[in-house]
């Protein structure tokens, strides 16, 4: 894994897909995010780490438009992004997964993944109602894309199964597939390995790296497992109590005194 990580560091970083400047987010009197700035470069795996309650998920929710920061500016491909609704941001090409899996539990794996294609489908309501020509061609085309993702994530066996009945690790994988199938320019993963055993974590790490390599997808992720984060990320942002306390390559962050203090605690004497 170490050699792979080194090889990844060598890859030249691209232009920023998204840049966050001086973001501050408050809920009533509580400041969840304090004046944080960082950027996510084209083609990189960017991790956000920090102890519980550091504001990592809030950060991800700001990026995906579920929360709107009181202060600061978000640049998407160099242009300021106005306050938008989550579905508008999804249509711009930002896909995400959730910490507590948000799948359509009553629908099959295939149907769930097909919903990820909704943003890409163009035929109108009338065309769908008549169910001919363009709409049918489009459905077949979308279906092929979905099947490709299903192959990629090795979930062929559960294509028709209602996702509510699947084991946790599998649900996480289906959720990744649904985000991935929309061909996002930025993929946000909120604790993709939470609650998984070692084997499942290895599988998920492999998929994340494969997605990044094969599709060139830019990924921003939150993760608690430090070993995993250090192995798969190109750059890491460290948060603590809503503030940024570190930013850099895994090696830089690992040796940063402020980060070590935040994780191990520091004596105030």
């Amino acid at each position: 894994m170490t050699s792979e990580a080194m090889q990844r560091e060598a890859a030249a970083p691209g232009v920023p897909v998204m840049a966050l400047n001086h973001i501050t987010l408050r809920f009533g009197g509580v400041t969840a995010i304090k004046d944080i700035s960082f950027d996510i470069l084209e083609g990189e795996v960017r991790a956000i780490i920090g102890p519980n309650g550091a504001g990592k998920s809030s950060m991800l929710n700001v990026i995906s438009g579920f929360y709107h920061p009181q202060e600061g500016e978000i640049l998407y491909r160099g242009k300021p992004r106005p306050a938008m609704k989550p579905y508008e941001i999804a249509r711009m090409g930002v896909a995400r997964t959730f910490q507590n899996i948000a799948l359509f539990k009553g629908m099959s794996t295939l149907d769930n993944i097909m919903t990820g294609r909704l943003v890409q489908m163009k035929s109108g309501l009338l065309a769908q109602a008549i169910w001919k020509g363009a709409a049918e061609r489009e459905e077949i085309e979308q279906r092929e894309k979905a099947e490709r993702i299903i192959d990629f994530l090795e979930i062929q066996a559960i294509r028709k199964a209602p996702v509510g009945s699947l084991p946790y690790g599998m649900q996480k994988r289906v959720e990744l597939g649904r985000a991935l199938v929309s061909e996002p320019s930025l993929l946000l993963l909120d604790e993709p390995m939470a609650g998984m055993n070692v084997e499942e974590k290895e599988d998920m790490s492999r998929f994340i790296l494969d997605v990044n390599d094969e599709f060139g997808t830019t990924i921003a992720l939150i993760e608690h497992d430090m070993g995993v984060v250090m192995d798969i990320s190109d750059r890491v942002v460290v948060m603590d109590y809503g503030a940024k306390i570190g930013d850099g390559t895994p090696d830089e962050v690992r040796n940063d005194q402020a980060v070590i203090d935040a994780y191990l605690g520091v004596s105030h004497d």
Partner: protein
Amino acid sequence: MSADVYYGIEVVLNGLMTGVMYALVALGFVLIFKASGVFNYAQGVMALFAAQTLVGLQTGQIPFSHLINAMFGLEVHHFGWTLPTVVAIALSLCMMILFAILVEKLVLKHLVNQEPIILFMATIGLAYFLEGFGQLMWGSEIKRLDIGIPQGGNLWIENATAGLGGDDFYGFYIDTLDLYAAGIAILMVAALVLFSQYTRTGRALRAVADDHQAALSVGISLRTIWVIVWSIAGFVALVAGAMWGAKSGVQFSLSLIALKALPVLMLGGFTSIPGAVVGGLIIGVGEKLFEFLIGAPFLGGATENWFAYMLALVFLVFRPQGLFGEKIIERV
């Protein structure tokens, strides 16, 4: 077989027909409940309003004529022309779609992320508003609705089955209007199921019904979906209102058929389209058969008024999620 058995069969057949009519009303509730978790108290009034609009347009009534006459001292009531039924239905449908858009813009939009009980209260307000608005617009008198479907016993069925039960049996009496209603209901359910299973919008509807947050994250606009859902529910209300209106006249009590939809929903489950149909049929047949076998001979009759609610109560005790509803499992 004796004539009694054939009377029994006739009761069952008529029960099925009534059941289809109940199912028509229940469908509207299910659609909105599935997509937004809102129990739409206004569904019955929507059916009444749709029927009033249909009659009004068909007979060339001047909308708000009472108001206009009172304000300007005029005596105008009708434009003096009548519209073909098809045109009137199309225009009524437009009206219901407009209503759906206004409901989203003026009510739902401002209540996003509120508790279901608050949305429910809002639909109660909506029901009373629409009830008054409908009367203001089209008047409150009882009107006859003729949508070109023949009424009364179906002679063909009556003649074809006349000889079956001996000399005392004159054949099955089945209202032709009920037959049409059954056919239209079957078509509508089939269309709704196909629409929700095989189209992009249908998939989006199911997605929203399942998980709002996840739906947002894949780029589905909840507001658009709500307009679509309320439009479809408006369409279902129009069909139900037209059928019930043609059967028993367009009048205030039409909005009360919504009350009969409640036991149907408790049986079928609030989230299942097939459930609404099966629930409707069970209630329809159940109440007619109960009246025929037990009610009329032993209890002095008129059991049809309460049988459905009794049945719903029994269901609530033994299977609260209904026959087809999703099982409620709370994770501890």
